[in-house]
């Protein structure tokens, strides 16, 4: 059996301040763990070699859902299952509920948290493997090595953002509440993700995400999500797409499309036309999304096919949005 190396201790703080203090004390040797559904496989694969695991599980006050005000507030420890099943979340944030309902399987969704999903590490067919396998292949930039097997030449890791919550949250203009030694700050999710597969977010040393804040959507705003996968359960995205637009009298305004599971950073599609919402308009959106997307052989699935599926997913996400 794959065993985790016995080289770390586990801390179970109960307040955010303690979390921050622990992270501060142990610096890069500490790693936060929430539901653990990604941290655990990564530990087994030797991708993480912390000295201290700081578990958020017992921290009070991080599992709140406040849907009464503006912005809506989703605690970092709220489980994906709870979000996916929550009637009001499904009503107010349908694409987010759909997306987190598409994450992994029922058990993962009950363990996995929104904060963990937002902060999920990038993935690559060459990295989410055992130490033996990675060593047999030759280590790569993301861990233990200096080359990238995807780009062959590049000096940058292009592992893919693979979290399903990111596209819908981006189209919802979500912000993150982050607490660190310097206190509390807010960051637009758009500024949170960066284009580096080694670490694709802007969390500084010692920081932890405490809440996800979502501006209360206007009633005219429509949201949709779709995901490309082979199995209909327990499958990371080969591509995922979220759409959002205002719909008034059949006219689509302020369209927003985010495509992910292609590179380290989810990609927002630019220059989307407005107009009467019909298949012509949606095809134009699909074409724009296609033009701005260049999948790499970083995750499973034929690259050309994944790219061709972009307009298809856009269409299906729009259909979901107008259901």
């Amino acid at each position, binding site marked *: *059996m*794959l*065993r*985790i*190396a*016995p*080289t*770390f*201790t*586990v801390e*179970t703080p109960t307040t955010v301040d303690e979390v921050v203090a622990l992270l501060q004390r142990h610096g890069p040797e500490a790693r936060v*763990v929430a539901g*653990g*559904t990604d941290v*655990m*496989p990564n*530990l*087994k*694969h030797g991708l993480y070699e912390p000295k201290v*695991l700081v*578990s958020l*599980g*017992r921290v009070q006050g991080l599992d709140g859902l406040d849907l009464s005000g503006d912005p809506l507030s989703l605690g970092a420890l709220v489980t994906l*299952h709870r979000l996916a099943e929550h009637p009001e979340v499904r009503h107010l944030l349908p694409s987010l509920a759909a997306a987190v309902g598409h994450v*992994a*399987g*029922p*058990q*993962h969704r*009950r*363990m996995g948290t929104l904060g963990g999903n937002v902060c999920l590490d990038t993935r690559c*067919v*060459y990295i*989410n*493997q*055992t130490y*033996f*396998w990675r*060593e*047999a*292949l*030759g280590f790569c930039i993301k861990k233990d090595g200096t080359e990238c*097997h995807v780009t062959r030449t590049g000096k940058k890791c292009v592992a893919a953002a693979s979290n399903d919550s990111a596209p819908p949250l981006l189209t919802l203009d979500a912000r993150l509440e982050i607490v660190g030694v310097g206190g509390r700050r807010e960051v637009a999710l758009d500024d949170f993700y960066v284009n580096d597969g080694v670490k694709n977010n802007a969390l500084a040393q010692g920081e932890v995400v405490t809440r996800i804040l979502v501006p209360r959507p206007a009633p005219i705003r429509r949201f949709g999500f779709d995901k*490309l996968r*082979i*199995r*209909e*359960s*327990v*499958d*990371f995205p080969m591509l995922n797409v979220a759409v959002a637009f205002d719909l008034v009298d059949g006219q689509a305004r302020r369209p927003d499309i985010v495509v992910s599971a292609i590179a380290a950073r989810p990609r927002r599609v630019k220059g989307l036309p407005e107009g009467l919402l019909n298949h012509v308009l949606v095809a134009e959106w699909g074409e724009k999304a296609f033009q701005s997307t260049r999948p790499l*052989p970083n995750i*499973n*699935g*034929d690259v*050309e*096919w994944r790219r*061709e*599926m972009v307009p*298809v997913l856009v269409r299906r996400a729009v259909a979901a949005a107008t259901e």
Partner: protein
Amino acid sequence: MNGPAMTARQLITLRVNGDTHEVAVRPNHTLLEVLRYDLGLTGSKQGCDKGDCGACTVLVDGEPALACCTLALMVPPGAEITTIEGLATKQGLDPVQDAFDRSGALQCGFCQPGMMLSARALLNRTTTPGDAEIRAALGGNLCRCTGYTQIFDAVKLAAAIERGEAPPHAPGAAPGHTVLGGRHRKADGHLKATGAAIYADDIVLPRMLHGRILRSPHAHARIVRIDASKALALPGVHAVLTGDALPARYGVIPWTEDEQALATDKVRFVGEEVAALAAVDEETADAALRLIEVEYAPLPPVLTPEAALEPDAPQIFEGRKHGNVTKRVDLAFGDVDAALSNAHHVVRGEYFFEGTAHAPIEPHCVVADVDARGLVTVWSSTQIPHYVHRTLSKVLEIPADRVRVIQPALGGAFGGKSDPFGHEIVAAKLAMITGRPVKFLLNREETFYTHRGRHPMKMSMALAADAEGRLTALDSKILIDGGAYSSFGLVTAYYSGQLLAAPTGYATYRFDSTRVFTNKPPCGPKRGHGSVQPRFAFEIAVDKMAHALGVDPIELRRRNDVGPDTTTVNGQRITSNGFLECLRVVEQASGWKQRYGRLPFGRGLGVAGSMYISGTAYPVYPNDMPQSGVEIRLDRSGRAHVMCGASDIGQGSNTMLALIAAEELGLRPDAVRVTSSDTDLSPVDLGAYSSRVTFMAGLAAQEAARALAGEVRDAVAVKLGVPSAEVTCGDGRWFSLRDPATGMTAAEAFALAEASRGRPVGATGGYRTDRNLGGPYRGGTIGASPAYSFTAHVVEVEVDADTGRIDVKKVWAAHDCGFALNPTLVEGQIAGSVYMGWAEAVMEEQAMVYGGPNPGLLRGPNLLDYRIPTAVETPDIEVFIVQSQDPNGPYGAKEAGEGPLHPVLPAIANAVFDAVGVRLDRLPFHPAVVRQALRCAAADAAAAPGGTGRC
């Protein structure tokens, strides 16, 4: 001196199944490890190492969670954990457990503790779950045996029990039988339902050491030097082994012994065993493994079968007469060339079948122990204890009477555990060296290197027909990628041709199959060994022929059906044959006549058929002893004890043995105990392969039981004062036929028999195949079977033209198993086979690395990258049993475990043609491939006439 640095244990309190436990846990230990190894709650299983399979599912405060992805120290204080051991109450089984047992859902049972807990959580929310809800709730629990069909039934039955609507279990029996043909619970059903069944990794012995294997990172390299001194010096390490300690070559087929427990001179695939060690715990073993230094001189790897045949190809084994060719079989029956040139129409095609893995949810595991007398006992997750026994004796160089092999409960095999393996030998050797028990539990990745999966095959077939639609010739040429060792490869090469001549026959036949070595994990027998691939090609060729001739594909098969009591073109004797009935059943159930060729674009139906063996005429090593032996002893308590070497790998052979004994001896099935696959206690049976167990062990059991029944009958007749012929039995009683009220309990009857003979009442039975089966030519006996099963499938697909995704809406599967000794188990075998074939068609593929610097590395050897289907996307499977009553099988029975896999793959391909007019001749049918094919077809159509629009 200390071992490797480890963080200290911490004392925690866990609430499990209502009990409070104080345990000292290491920070790196998962809840699963603590439950299994510290608390002894081994019902929770470990399948994938890391969150991919759901076997470790437990309930935490009523909600399903993965114990392998939870550190024990992270379990919230006060959380109530429920494991499978906590489900049953003093009142008995939980309705979920009861229903899973009754529905046949507990095949190997390995996935089921987790599955049942997920089902329990669902039923806690609702007692009226819909189909989609059930599938979704079980979507995180992979099952490899059942195809989920009987699991869905079980959940619905459990819900009905909870609603108070389900009738009590009444097994019934087939007409003329008291037990057989009834829907009996499995002999080990309650054990599997409660998590009490003991699998190899559940065995923990005092002073047990843990083993690890060092594997080659190179596909092809010479071993220059191995230095294990640093590893050996690490405190906690008890022994390190290298190949020189176990030089003997072995292999399951005595003519092709080319394996070694640990490589000595060179390595031939990534993952090959190079060294092994035993240490006090797994962490120390892991640390020690990294201290072994191996210097390799890499050699150019051979990664495709074509490359293996190049004149200047690197030689994988030096000095072999045939170089990289492991076996070539070239046989011809009749004048194929003449038939081809005289044909009205010839269909030619090239087909490709990618390799696939068995992926049972239980990884390979072995525990070895040597007692004070020097007796070596090996508990292994094997389906061939007898061959393991022989191999251990040979490689360890100790007499066979010093070796005992026991197969505990087995968590799925499908052919993947039917070779003797290096880890078994190494475990025994390390136990001998250290004087302590040693366990090896392979991780999921290692199971992909151990492999023995389905061979990739490149197939070229020409099928000829006359103007009346009679098939006149099949000309087949197959290149088989064998991987690095022979395994069953000799047989594979034969099976790739021998098993194709029925049920749809042809007048002349030639096949030329070549298996070659490549630097990949060795291929072997996977469910439907050797014949699933050519069957795929052939059944598509038949479909193409039907279209070319303008004949309905079912009609074309009818026209060329070989029928019962006949001999095939290659000399195989066919007795019972229910293929036409299978065809009729699926034709009707699917609405074929009304719907075939008439569904809207994107929807389609496809048909295919197949046959498979019920055991083979020859054992793998030549001898005149029985292929299967059974011993039965009766006890004055009214119990029968059946002993047989046959391996119950989840298919239910223990149940089959119990039911036969119960039928013959007038017992209720629960009065029969079965001790199987323990080489010290049970007579030899060759193992669970070639679909031989029901047929052979069944006949042996019948023979032994009948002999005993005769003795009991005589004694009872004397007592009742009636002729023996007037004594009968059933339901735990022996009585007079004329006056059923006059009689006695089975216990009294057995006591009479014991008293009348003055010795315990026991008998043996054996089965030996008629050696004259098969054609009179070299190799004619390979593939010759005492009986053949037949199958027909109709599949309905929907092809999503946007994505290329093939959605199999429904599979109608009819299988002729001769006679269903227990219909529930037969249905489970059929549904599980259909699932496995469908999975190979649409998603599975054991392929090499995506690119990169080590091209001999397997692509994602884990259960996330190597996708096996979940409950959500598995198609609706409707199963039909056809019973042709085989004249030689036990009560008319023949196999059901492998045959029903074959037709589904070509039937899907044929259905896709019906749906969108595109031929898929290469597996698997990835959406990307399907979409590309659709695009090519569209381009072709646009460029018509002549179709030059190749894309």
